[in-house]
């Protein structure tokens, strides 16, 4: 089974590997997959609560080359996007970009889930109401 050049590139040079402080108020953490399935992705975002722009994204993945590439690509794409724009990313975009074969499509689905989970976590922490000015200053 040959991997696409892009998958190999992400595998050899993964982007944005690392960890953000999951307790921080501006960080959203998504942990998806399960060890029994052979795929676990943790995707974290740091969001500017004023602009709702994802300023930082980090990932760690337990999984095959395609899973690593999908999550690495996900962090690349969501950085600089607003939370709303990031939610627009579909797994099929990832499949296309990485030229994933049919048996690896589920890796892209997991990456999409990870993005949603991270954003969902951030939203839960930061709630629906606009934060008061004093709280905004504290969150900076």
């Amino acid at each position: 089974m040959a991997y696409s050049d892009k998958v190999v590139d992400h595998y050899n040079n993964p982007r944005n590997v690392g960890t953000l402080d999951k307790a921080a108020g501006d960080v959203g953490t998504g942990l998806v997959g399960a060890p029994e399935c052979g795929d676990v992705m943790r995707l974290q975002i740091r969001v500017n609560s004023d602009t709702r722009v994802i300023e930082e994204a980090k990932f760690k993945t337990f999984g095959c080359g395609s899973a690593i590439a999908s999550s690495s690509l996900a962090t690349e794409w969501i950085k600089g996007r607003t939370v709303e724009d990031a939610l627009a990313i579909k797994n099929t975009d990832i499949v296309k970009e990485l030229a994933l074969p049919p048996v690896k499509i589920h890796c892209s689905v997991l990456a999409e889930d990870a993005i949603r989970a991270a954003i969902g976590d951030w939203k839960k922490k930061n709630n629906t109401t606009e934060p008061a000015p004093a709280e905004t200053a504290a969150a900076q």
Partner: protein
Amino acid sequence: MSEVSKQAAVPAGVHLPIYMDNQATSPLDPRVLEAMMPFFTAKFGNAASRNHAFGWEAEQAVEMAREQIAKLIGATAKEIIFTSGATESDNLAIKGIAEMYRERGNHIVTQVTEHKAVLDTCKRLEKHGYRVTYLPVKADGIIDLEDLKRAIDDKTILVSIMAANNEIGVLQPIREIGKICHEKGVIFHTDAVQAVGKVPFNVIADNVDVASISGHKIYGPKGVGAMYVRRRNPRVQIAAQIDGGGHERGMRSGTLNVPGIVGLGKACEIAAAEMETEAVYLRGLRDRLKAKLESALDYIHVNGSIENRLPGNLNMSFVYVEGESLLMGINDVAVSSGSACTSATLEPSYVLKALGLGDDVAHSSIRFGLGRFNTEAEVDYVAAKVIDIVRKLRELSPLYEMVKEGIDLTKIEWQAH
């Protein structure tokens, strides 16, 4: 040993890619190819052509191969028949005995880590009115002899248990199994594919009635195998599954693959002569690889019994790192993995599951199959590469990070999709 944090340079004497997957198949020994060649060129006769020299010389070569195989396993030449490979031998043994002894009973006993050639054949027989008991294995991969004794009843006609497992290299106690079968009057078949020529195997001493042998696992050619069928104490009869001319004492029709058979015979002759020293050599290489990995990495373990094991097999799990991603990183080394991602069906290894290992451990497993042509330099190179890649992938692994922080992964509610 030099620093492993940087990419291992290719040392002298190491040629890439390195083949370390000898349980999947093995390269042809040059001596075997040499023995086979004339039978592709000048000596091309059909071994069943009774009336001319082309046939006689082919037949003579076949009979010599029979002797060579028989000698390796402690049988007589008349007890060896040729097939297209061990999958066919397994099919012929199990189906042939099931059919022949139908009047006596319809129960077969086997075990869960058998090769698919045995398991799928048993599954098919279950659809045709046979009952099959699949014995479990313990954490070391070995069956419990008490379970076997309890499983055999008055309708049992066959016990089929492999001598050595292809994934984990674990050796079953076939001598004791055979003894139990003989005491109870049940035929004992063993898939001896991975054991023959690697560890001592003698059909008389080991109480074996029927055995399957493969050419391409012992540095012989693909597309040929053999079957041992006992003629005395007890005499075993097999109903043919392929009809057409009655070759091989009526058990397996079809023109013989003379070059293949010659190759199989030669491979067995070489194995008989070199097995002992080769086993010492391979065990040394295997233990060297294991020691290097264990001294550099944490959270790794060997799957299956280390004492009762093929000399060249090392099946290890590198926990918190997934198998396919590991293989990708050592792309100039040929090994295999029990990970679901590496299988055609996306199922993790059923053999590792049978050991009681969690799927996550199966996903992290790598099978190293050392063989006759591997060298110490290759082992050192592979060890360095594996260590390097495991470390890199652990930096990428959320599981490893969590474990290092003291989090109990079994307590987490995973969000599987």
